[in-house]
């Protein structure tokens, strides 16, 4: 990891010095297909994306819970499987809920 970090850093610095520098104002403004820049780019984007991010956080944590189970799955046997089914039930419940609620709807 350190190696990767080092590599990246060195390359970054190298490219910084190697490239020619000709700063012109045109070059430094943002590219908007050649049209005059309008407003700040940092404006709210569709809520859908946030929703996806939020759902990811939730479901990802739930998925993480599957891992220890999966690894010890044989040892836990049917009892564990039943308990897991319950968990999966909740997972699916939540999933169906957001589905029906329209959180996964991207067509509009």
């Amino acid at each position: 990891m350190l190696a990767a970090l080092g590599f990246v850093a060195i390359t970054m610095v190298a490219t910084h010095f190697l490239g020619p520098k000709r700063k012109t104002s045109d070059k430094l403004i943002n590219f908007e297909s050649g049209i005059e820049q309008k407003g700040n780019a940092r404006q709210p984007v569709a809520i859908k994306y946030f929703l996806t991010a939020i759902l990811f956080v939730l479901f990802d944590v739930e998925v993480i819970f599957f891992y220890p189970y999966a690894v010890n799955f044989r040892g836990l046997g049917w009892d564990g499987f039943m308990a897991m089914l319950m968990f999966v039930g909740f997972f699916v419940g939540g999933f169906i809920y957001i589905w029906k609620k329209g959180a996964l709807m991207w067509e509009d």
Partner: protein
Amino acid sequence: MPVQYYIFLSIALFCIGVMGVLIRRNAIVIFMCIELMLNAVNLLLVAFSKMWVDAGRIDAAAAQLFVFFIMVVAAAEVTVGLAVIVMMYRNAHSVDINILNRLKN
């Protein structure tokens, strides 16, 4: 490493988090500081867990379980928190908590 190191580290992290919450004005930064606090606690719990295992306690795994729960709950909190911050941002176009004084009449 002796457990004290972990304790000091996590308390330091915790204090950084607390200070961040108290000093910073950006809601997201505050939020991250809170997460930092939680993670400091996680670290501490794991350290203590190790300590008690070394001391011969059998139920020391409880602390690790606790960490799991903290992570889950933190995720739930993140979910709600982000939603709230996004909502705030969309209405007020800012996440600076200094504007949170409309309620003070």
